[in-house]
Every structure is written in structure tokens, then in C-alpha cells.
């Protein structure tokens, strides 16, 4: 008998609730390392990731997207805020407040896929040891069980199990990224943080890896936080997209809505900057001038106002809040309701 399906779509179940996440890095000076300022790399970020969805996190370099994702993994300790995680056991824990010992049992549930397929695998370890290492550190299975699991994982990502006794150097970039994915999946995680997983790959290999990620997600009911700068890739894989600028979220919405009706001028500018693979469509004109301000000394008011074509006096003084413009569509702009019609004018 098949499982009864609900006649109406079930409401999304939150897996991770990020509230007011902050990460500051001190700026030190002199021999005594006196703290003279703070780089506010992530400054009050709120978002929720639902079970089984892909949340895309985009922004330019230095916007804090990688720092935010590393805070969620507790690879670095956040300065403030909460990271409420719904565990497999059904509890809600604040990852930001847990001690390293309390985190240990949860490590297996949240895993990461890295950007550089050449730097992220140990060249002196075989695939068996590279892919099986998360099982070893999490104390899962004996050697025989680990070997079986690695064979299963390699098959899952489209590699031959016989490869497990080879070393990473024998594989191409795309194959290595598959190995990295197999390792991330070793502990049967629920949430996978992927930081630029395809940006180092060739066009044709990129398509293969994106297809693999989509397939694995539906097969294993995975939840992805997909951090990337390439908007066409993020659009392809994400259910919802969050845009960051100078440590803050400026827009968060379902993929279709954000591309059809961007409610923040920065999002619209990012989209216009993508070179479209069609010579009949002229993009990269009417481009965004200026540079990203330093998170150590952000501008007054709206952080985007010095580069915004539509900035008014109010934008220089008043800091806009992230507001819900239409259901599920959040934007941090005083004039969010007027977009994108205003942009076309």
C-alpha cells in the first residue's frame, strides 16, 4: 500500500531557524593587539530553512554569506543570535549556545560540501579513508561496515566502488567533487551546507554535479543551504533565495518571485550584471557602479544607498528594516512596494 498523500500541500516544517545571527571580527592594532574596531561580517541575519528545501544564499565577495554558513556549522563561533535546529530526535536546540561536547552528536546531522575539489580531499588518503573519515570520527560502524558504506556512497554519486582504493589525484575535478559529496553524505545528514560547490567546475561538469545534487535531494530528502555567487546556478537549484549585502539580508523570497519581482534595487542590479548567454539579449549595460562598502565602516542609513540609482534623502538617514512585502517575500528597502515598476522607469 502506498502512503496516503495529503490533498492539500503540507505546510513546510522548519529545520533550521536563524535569528539575529551576528559574527564580528575584531580589528586589532599594535603590539598589545588593542581592539580598535569591529568588522561586522554578519550583522543580524534572520532566515528559516524548511525540511527538504534548498535555500540559496547569494551576494558578492565579502557580503558575509560564507561567514554565515560557517556559523551554522559552528566552524566558527557566532558573536550573537540564535541558530535553532530541529534535531532528528524532535528537540529544538540552539546550535549557537551549545558546548563543543554537546555539539558532537549533532555534527553527523549537518555536513558540508566544499568549493575546491582539489584542496578539500586529503591527497595521501585513499577514497575509502577520505569518504569514510566522517564515519570514523563519528564512531559509526567497524571497518567492514565502513567499507560497505563507502562502496554504497560511491555508487550513489555515480562512481565505481572499485575506485575506493585509489587516491584523489587519479580523478578529474568533477569526479573529485562527487567524492566530496559522497563524504558529506557519509553520516546520513539532514542538512547539507554547500559553499560554491560548482564554481570551480567546467560548464558541462557543472551541469552533471547540479543534476546529482537535485537527484540526491529528492532521493534522500536532504535539505540544502546552497551558498554561491552565480545567480543562474542558484536560480536553477533553489526553492527560495536569500540575498546578502554587507552582512545583512536585503531580500528573501521564493525563487520565482525574486526573479520576477525583485523588491530590492540591489537584487535587481545583481540580476542585470549576469552576462546572458544570448547575443540578442544585451545585459551588463546599465550596470551597478561603485564598490561594496567595508563591513568595518558601513555607510549611514541603508547600506546600499551610495550605489543605489533611486536613493533619496531618507535612505541616507533611516536604516530600513527587513519587511514582509507580499506573503513570504521579504525586502530591506523603504520603497520595496514600488519595485520593480520603479526600476523600469
Amino acid at each position, binding site marked *: 500500500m502506498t502512503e496516503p498523500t495529503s490533498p492539500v500541500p503540507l505546510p513546510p516544517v522548519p529545520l533550521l531557524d536563524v535569528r539575529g545571527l551576528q559574527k564580528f571580527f575584531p580589528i586589532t592594532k599594535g603590539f598589545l593587539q588593542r581592539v580598535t574596531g569591529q568588522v561586522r561580517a554578519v550583522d543580524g541575519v534572520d532566515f528559516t530553512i524548511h525540511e527538504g528545501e534548498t535555500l540559496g544564499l547569494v551576494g558578492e565577495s565579502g557580503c558575509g554569506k560564507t561567514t554565515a554558513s560557517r556559523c551554522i556549522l559552528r566552524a566558527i563561533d557566532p558573536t550573537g543570535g540564535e541558530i535553532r535546529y530541529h534535531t532528528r530526535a524532535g528537540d529544538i536546540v540552539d546550535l549557537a549556545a551549545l558546548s563543543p561536547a554537546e555539539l558532537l552528536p549533532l555534527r553527523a546531522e549537518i555536513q558540508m560540501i566544499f568549493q575546491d575539489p582539489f584542496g578539500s580531499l586529503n591527497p595521501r588518503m585513499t577514497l575509502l579513508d577520505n569518504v569514510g573519515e566522517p564515519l570514523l570520527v563519528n564512531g559509526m560502524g567497524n571497518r567492514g561496515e565502513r567499507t560497505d558504506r563507502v562502496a554504497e556512497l560511491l555508487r550513489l554519486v555515480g562512481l565505481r566502488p572499485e575506485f575506493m582504493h585509489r587516491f584523489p589525484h587519479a580523478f578529474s575535478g*568533477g569526479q573529485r567533487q562527487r567524492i566530496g559529496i559522497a563524504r558529506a553524505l557519509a553520516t546520513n545528514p539532514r542538512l547539507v551546507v554547500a559553499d560554491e560547490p560548482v564554481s570551480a567546475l567546467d*560548464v558541462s561538469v557543472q*551541469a552533471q554535479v547540479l543534476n546529482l545534487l537535485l537527484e540526491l535531494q529528492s532521493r534522500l530528502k536532504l535539505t540544502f543551504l546552497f551558498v554561491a555567487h552565480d545567480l543562474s546556478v542558484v536560480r536553477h537549484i533553489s526553492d527560495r533565495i536569500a540575498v546578502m549585502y554587507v552582512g545583512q539580508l536585503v531580500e528573501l523570497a521564493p*525563487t520565482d518571485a525574486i526573479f520576477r519581482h525583485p523588491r530590492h534595487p540591489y537584487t535587481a*542590479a545583481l540580476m542585470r550584471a549576469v552576462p546572458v548567454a544570448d*547575443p540578442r539579449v544585451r545585459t551588463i549595460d546599465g550596470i551597478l557602479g561603485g564598490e561594496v562598502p567595508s563591513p568595518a565602516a558601513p555607510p549611514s542609513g541603508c547600506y546600499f544607498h551610495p550605489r543605489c540609482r533611486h536613493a533619496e534623502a531618507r535612505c541616507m538617514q533611516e536604516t530600513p528594516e527587513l519587511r514582509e512585502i507580499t506573503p513570504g517575500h521579504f525586502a530591506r528597502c523603504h520603497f520595496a512596494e514600488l519595485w520593480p515598476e520603479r526600476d523600469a522607469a
Partner: protein
Amino acid sequence: MTSDTAVPLLSVRDLRVSFTLDDGLVRAVDGTSFDVMPGQVLGIVGESGCGKSVTMKAILQLVDRPGKITNGQIMFRRRPPGQEAGGEVVDLALLPPKGAVMREIRGAEIALIPQEPMASFSPVHTVGDQIIEAIMLHGHRWDAGRRITRAQARDITIGLFRDVGISMPEQRIDAYSWQLSGGLRQRAMIAMALSCKPRLLIADEPTTAIDVTTQAQVLALLRDLQHKYNTAIIFITHDLGVIAQMASYVVVMYLGRVMEQGPVDEIFHAPAHPYTRALLRSIPGLTGATRTALPVISGTLPHPFNRPAGCPFHPRCPDVMARCAEAVPNLEPVGPYQAASCFLHHAEASAT
């Protein structure tokens, strides 16, 4: 005298570059031919290992040992001193890499914008000094043989900085490369490449290391400068979007050979080679369905020691035929300005 636009500025014919390694011979470039017209933006697109960067190194005679140009011609029309048009044609493939003629051409007549502006500027000299040095080294050649003084070279550099959109050029000229942001550094690199008014500019993945908004700024700048100076540009990239936006003519390479070449509109809207078609299908766009499987090119790139016989693409080709494994198809015309090396478009056996 012939018209300046009808004669190619650079003409590459059957270029072959191979690397003799302990484990065997790698034929990185295996019979590549294309032309660059004066003032044209030529895009060369291909995935890693297709030989696009080695081709450019061969043009500049910068192929590292054990690499060697084993065959072919690289005909380049030199700029006569003090003139803009005409000039004698030399075969760069025959010139000694460290000889006086090649050193005159390199930087002055053919300039390079490298991929990594951070690694390309010396960190111990100011960016201004490095550009001034280039101008003083090459500048006299087109100014009727007159030497350029350091003060003049500095003024030229400040003018160039203004041209490439660097604000406060008088201060920035004395900055070190590590004091500049990624975008400014790439602008300074472009200023350096343009400093000797080259006829040909080779841009090797000039925007892959920078952000999308900065990339758009740099691409728009290159487009403006190209109109202003009418410099021919060879634009090498793996990004089909950048090619579509920048190039007027496109060369598609795979495993050291030209698969297809043609005007940008034909390449994107009427691709003739199965590889071009497959490549175009595999990129996610800003429109179209999301979260669906992208069409992929089956198989993987063969190992360099393991080149397939016949057409290099045949093991991965959806339209493969028996003869594809036996003979290498020549580049044959498939339209007025378009050519493809594929037996699908060959009437009779025309193979090498």
C-alpha cells in the same frame, strides 16, 4: 594598397603545440586555425584542457618547456613605426622566443590581460612604476623614434587610469597592487595592457576571479575601450554568457582542435557542431524551468595521454557515426561565415 579591415591582423594556421612528458606526448593544441581581423573581438570558448590558453601562449611565444610549437604558422601584421595602418607580416612561430623582434612585439603590439591581476603585478613596486616602465621601454617606437621621458610616461599613465575609470588617478598611481581592490587591480591591469597602444589584446579569462557586478563593470569598460581605440581583442573564457555579450566572432575548441567557428549570433542560435549544441544546452539560464535535470554531455573529458582516434569528440557525441572514429573531420564551411569540423556537414570524405 589593400583595405585594412579585409586583411587579417593575426592568422593562425594548423598550429600544433605538444608537451613531451615522461609518460608520453600531450598534444595540447592539435591543428588549430583561425583569423583575427583588425578591431574585431574574437571569443575563444572551451572547457579546461581544450588548448585555449596554450594557443595564446604560443602566439606570445611563451609556451613553457617541455612544450613546443611543432607545426603551423602564426602570421601577425606588425605596426610600422609611427603609423597606424599597414605593416609587414611576420610568422611568430618562427621567431626566437627571447629574440629582439619578439620582445618588441610582446607587450607593445600584442598585450595580455591575465586572469589573476594579483599575481601579475609585482607587490614591491607601485602599479604606476610598472606601467611607466612598460611605456618607457616600448613608447619610442611609434613616436617617430623619440624617447619618452619619465615625466611624460607618468602623465600618460595618469591619463590611462582616467580612461579605465580609476578615480583619483594622481594618488592611485603611487599605490601598490595589494592596496587596490580586485576591480581596481583589474582596471590597472587593463591600463597597463593598453599603455603601448597594442593592435591586439589577449584577454585570458580576465573576469573569472571577480564578482559579477565588478565583472559587468570590467566587461563594459573593455567594450568601451575597444570602440575607442579599435583594438582587436581575443577573449578567452569558459563562460558562454561573457562570450555572448562580448564577442562578434566565436571559436569553439575541444581537445586542442577547433570544433566550430562563426559569428556570435550563428554560434548561439544556429550551432552546427554537436559539441557546441551540447555545451549551450548544459548551462542554466535566468529564464526557463528550475530544479529540473539539465541536459549533460555524456562521459568525461578523456585523459590527455588517451586521445580518442578520429574526431576528438566522438566518444561523447550524440550524433556519432562509424567514420567519426576512423578519420578526423576538417573544418568545413557550413554557412557564409560559419565553419564546423563534423562529418554531419561533410558531403564527401574530407578528412585528414
